[in-house]
């Protein structure tokens, strides 16, 4: 079951780097688990060892929305990266672009990837320097906005959007296609 996502208001933390790969998001030493939980403390583990790291700043505490650079989530397919982000508390990630597998993993774990234009991302990143800065991410309307007049439209993957809005059980849904699957198997031995 996917945790539904319709509309979320939350504090923003900025990580203005491009090509943040899943090895950074959740380093390999945390991949040995056999559960879906327990990954939050491993989030950006190596980077968090640096006191100057963005998420270690007081202003970033309690953030539920991450704004970051292009090609976020590139590299390994490890879904653990999304589990770690979700467990740490992030519900949405705003970036100019995402890696494909990461994107698919987000939709299946109640985390909304929001693709905005580079100048819009820059604006949110800049405002996130102010303590307590919040935005509203509305998946139904596909709009991101803040209290200072910023609004930006985004277009979410249609299937991913449906999964999130309705909190669907994807497997349960596909199992309803049983007759089509069986028919396919018969015609393709």
């Amino acid at each position, binding site marked *: 079951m996917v945790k539904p996502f319709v509309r979320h208001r939350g504090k923003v933390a900025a990580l203005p780097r*491009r090509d943040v790969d899943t*090895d950074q998001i959740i380093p*390999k030493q945390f991949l*040995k688990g056999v559960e*879906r939980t327990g990954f939050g403390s491993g989030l950006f583990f190596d980077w968090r060892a640096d006191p100057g790291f963005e998420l270690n700043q007081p202003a970033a505490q309690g953030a539920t929305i991450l704004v970051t650079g292009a090609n976020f989530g590139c590299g390994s397919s490890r879904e653990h990266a999304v589990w770690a982000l979700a467990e740490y508390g992030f519900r949405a990630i705003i970036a100019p672009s995402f890696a494909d*597998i990461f994107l698919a993993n987000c939709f299946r774990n109640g985390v909304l990837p929001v693709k905005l234009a580079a100048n819009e991302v820059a604006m949110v990143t800049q405002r996130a320097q102010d303590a307590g800065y919040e935005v509203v991410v509305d998946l139904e309307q596909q709009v991101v906005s803040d209290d200072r007049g910023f609004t930006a439209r985004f277009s979410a993957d249609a299937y991913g959007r449906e999964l999130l809005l309705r909190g669907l059980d994807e497997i349960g849904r*596909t199992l309803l296609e049983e007759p*089509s699957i069986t028919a396919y198997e018969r015609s393709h031995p």
Partner: protein
Amino acid sequence: MTARTLFDRVWDAHVVRALADGVSLLYVDLHLVHEVTSPQAFAGLRHAGRKVRRPERTLATVDHNVPTSERTLPIADPVAARQVDALSTNAREFGIELFDLASPGQGIVHVIGPELGATQPGMLIVCGDSHTSTHGAFGAFALGIGTSEVEHVLATQCIVLSKPRNLEARISGSLEPGVGAKDLILALIGKIGTAGATGHVIEYTGDAIRALSMEERMTVCNMSIEAGARAGMIAPDEVTFAYLGGRPRAPQGAAWTAALERWRTFRSDPNARYDAQVQLDASRVGPQVTWGTTPGMVADIKARVPDPAQLATENEREAALRALEYMGLKPGTPLEGIPIDRVFLGSCTNARIEDLRAAANIVRGRHVASRVRAMVVPGSQRVKAQAEQEGLDRVFRDAGFEWRNAGCSMCLGMNPDVLGAGERCAATSNRNFEGRQGRGGRTHLMSPVMAAAAAIEGHLVDVRAW
């Protein structure tokens, strides 16, 4: 009938049902499973009381976190051992064939699929691993998926996808001696960037691709993901069929003849349209080495470490500055001559028998530089056995290399094979991300012959001068 590309054909052949908005339910022919990204998927099935729909279309192996040292001893790391045990329990419970540590068929999942002949043209192949793109070298549509999707495929034998766009990478000309498939793909990634193919399936075409062996084609397709692609594909031809003939899982007899006829249809029409195109002249590509922390931060061995200040955008400048700081490199330093501490010959990119043969030719009768620790980790136990039969293990051992058992090993450093902080490694793997091979470790990606030459010299070197 409108003209179709190779990818269109394979896609169309797998549509079970078109769902809304360009999204389709597709049938999966082969599902490869390994220990790291599958335990939660099996747990999910068990929790929901679901079965694996087609266990015979599912193959499992242990590769990511297994030790590459002596196989007769139990795994020393209890957490890694738990994951390996979990896979064998799951395989037994759900009726899936498993190549475990004791099996002569064990190896990196992307090495054993082709080696068994389980990977075939026109198939849709998935695995919870991004380098599943490797199998596209056979004209399969092969893509990496997350654990939730692994569970979905186990339960339904299907996957839900929006159709990616199609990019043609036309590689013309012919390669100079000493330059190979790894250099081609690194040069291409350097050209289009690490997100250059996001949302696309790359089809590699052109004379330079046709001239490659199957193993080299796998190296190229393997790193498609490093350009952001969903998958990489090469249309099957006589080279493909010659590789597959006689392999244990390849069709035999009349079925082989029928398969050949079908496989020959998996190609792009001459007038097929791609959504995007890039070109590369192979004759102008020299040996490539990475200098930074993404595979796109790459240059010819004759080049110097770039000056971030000279880069086009603020974003690139910042990224390069960070990368050089992490890598401990100064702008303007010639790449040739950068001293190294470690050499890793391995991974699903470059640990097949041809890679080992090529590297052995370089090191034969020579010795690893005194400051360097070098290791060879064959891609599979079969590759290892073959190499031993050819005496390559002796060549490597005599030259001072460690000769290991198969696994991912230092490609991702989940097992005890890791770099220490600040250690610099010439690696034949595919990712030079910060900390990938060990926290603080510095990775330079290159071809097997380049890594072998670097091991002997103790620094990065142009293998063409050998």
